[in-house]
């Protein structure tokens, strides 16, 4: 849970970041850091706080508490740190009435890129992002994929040290996704990149390191392999007992060795039956009949769940949130 040890000085340092809108807590006490040259995937379901976190790093939103340092500079009301960040918000919202070339001119001027340098830079970016054929078309008329590439070029035009991309592959078709990923990989060779996604496989294939957030909290932080190890082992067991209340059953099963979590799946109050889902590190089926019998309950059903642990819990936590 702690920050990943970073030998080199982190180029982005997020410390105890919280952001709330009234009673809604979008981000809660989030801390992580990104080393220079690292490609970090910010992973989490929709509404986990990924966009909010990125918006705070770019200075677009103010944190409720906590600090963010970018390249050693605290992100505050000054605009000093903006020079080192290139940011592409979700859905790539750029001025629709401008042609791509003018958009790049606009961003280049804002970043203070000298005019003589722009020509070469635009040429390089247009080939890197595959924009050659659309440079003189209005942004509004571009397809989703081209909009995304134009947005990438817009974010890159100031030659920023850090690139922050919010869901750069959302809404793209599979071919476009592959293309954008390869562009991100290429960019990541010379820059620090943070990008968000809700697809584990995508983060795995593109990132050096993954930070998973859920409900505004840090859930995991490490390489793809480390993160998977933390999630992978375990067995889901579905148990149905009669004669126990939900609370009693949950309490008892939580005490069983190697059971991590207990969730109520179904209940039938009239019949006094309750079905539970146990997340265990090992298969505990052999021990369960005795435990149930000791309490004077009846064991009606017991099965190793055919769902993977991940999907079972996704289903259950999703149902509870609704």
């Amino acid at each position, binding site marked *: 849970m702690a920050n990943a040890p970073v030998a080199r000085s982190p180029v982005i340092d997020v410390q105890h970041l919280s*952001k709330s809108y009234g009673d809604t807590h979008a981000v809660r006490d989030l801390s992580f850091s990104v080393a220079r040259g690292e490609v970090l995937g910010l992973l989490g379901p929709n509404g986990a706080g990924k966009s909010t976190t990125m918006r705070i790093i770019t200075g677009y939103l103010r944190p409720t508490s906590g600090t963010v340092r970018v390249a050693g500079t605290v992100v505050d009301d000054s*605009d000093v740190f903006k020079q080192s960040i290139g*940011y592409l*918000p979700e859905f790539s*919202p750029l001025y629709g009435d401008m042609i791509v070339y003018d958009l790049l001119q606009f961003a280049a001027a804002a*970043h203070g890129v000298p005019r003589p340098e722009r020509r070469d830079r635009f040429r390089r970016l247009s080939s890197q992002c595959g924009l050659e054929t659309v440079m003189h078309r209005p942004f509004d008329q571009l397809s989703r994929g081209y909009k995304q590439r134009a947005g990438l070029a817009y974010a890159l035009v100031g030659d920023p040290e850090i690139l922050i991309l919010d869901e750069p592959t959302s809404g793209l078709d599979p071919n476009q996704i592959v293309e954008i990923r390869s562009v991100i990989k290429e960019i990541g060779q010379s820059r620090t990149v943070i990008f968000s996604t809700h697809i584990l496989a995508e983060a795995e294939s593109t990132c050096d390191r993954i930070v998973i957030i859920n409900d505004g909290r840090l859930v995991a932080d490490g390489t793809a392999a480390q993160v998977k190890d933390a999630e992978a082992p375990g067995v889901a067991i579905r148990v149905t007992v009669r004669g126990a209340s939900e609370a009693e059953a949950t309490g008892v099963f939580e005490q069983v060795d190697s059971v991590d979590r207990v969730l109520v799946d179904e209940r039938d109050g009239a019949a006094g039956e309750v079905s539970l889902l146990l997340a265990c590190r090992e298969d505990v089926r052999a021990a369960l009949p005795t435990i149930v019998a000791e309490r004077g309950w009846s064991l009606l059903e017991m099965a190793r769940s055919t769902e993977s642990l991940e999907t079972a819990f996704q289903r259950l936590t999703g149902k509870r949130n609704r």
Partner: protein
Amino acid sequence: MWLVVRRELRSAFGSPIGYVVAVVFLAVTGWLLFSTFFLNGRADLRAFFELLPITLALVAPAITMRQLSEELSSGTYESVLTLPLSAAQILGGKFVASLLFVMIVLVPTLLYPLSIASVVGGSAATQLDWGPVVGGYIGAILLAGLYCAIGLLASSASRNQIVAFILAIAVCAFLALVDRMLFIIPAPLVGLIQFLSATSHFESVARGVLDTRDLVYFVSFGGAALFGAHAVMQVRRG
């Protein structure tokens, strides 16, 4: 900031709203002036300048309404604000661009005094007096600046352009018309209300008297509106 000014002006000329506003404004003011011109038998632009506080109260909000509202609703606000530009630069650029656009719309109205001058000819008795004309245009620019600032404040406050438009018209029209309502206002407040009136300050400038009180009025009220818009932009950061 000039970067934003250039972008906004280009966008204003690229959108139909700007042209519609310009054409309607010119048609209406031209008609209002010349429909009574020969009846009055006076070689002046009083009919044009008298109504300017009201006509501009419709023109300026039409130009400023989209400035921030549209960016907020389409999300471009985020991609611009995260460039190395400050909120003040963006706001200042939008203000200057709107004011320049109103001034450009006013340029064709220079035909009014020019045509009047050519009609009445050069005899000293009937000649057009250029003093009030110059004063009128200086007043028009000050008035447009105030209205644009109010329009931007309204635009910063709402994602909806129509809401921003109506809000701005309401405030501008209030400032334009408040001096016509003096008869319902208790005597002790009359001085204050008169000070609030954009029309009375505009008329004073248009008479050719550049009083510091009028300048202070336009600069401080316009400045307050821009300051308010900047504050709203900061509040949006949460």
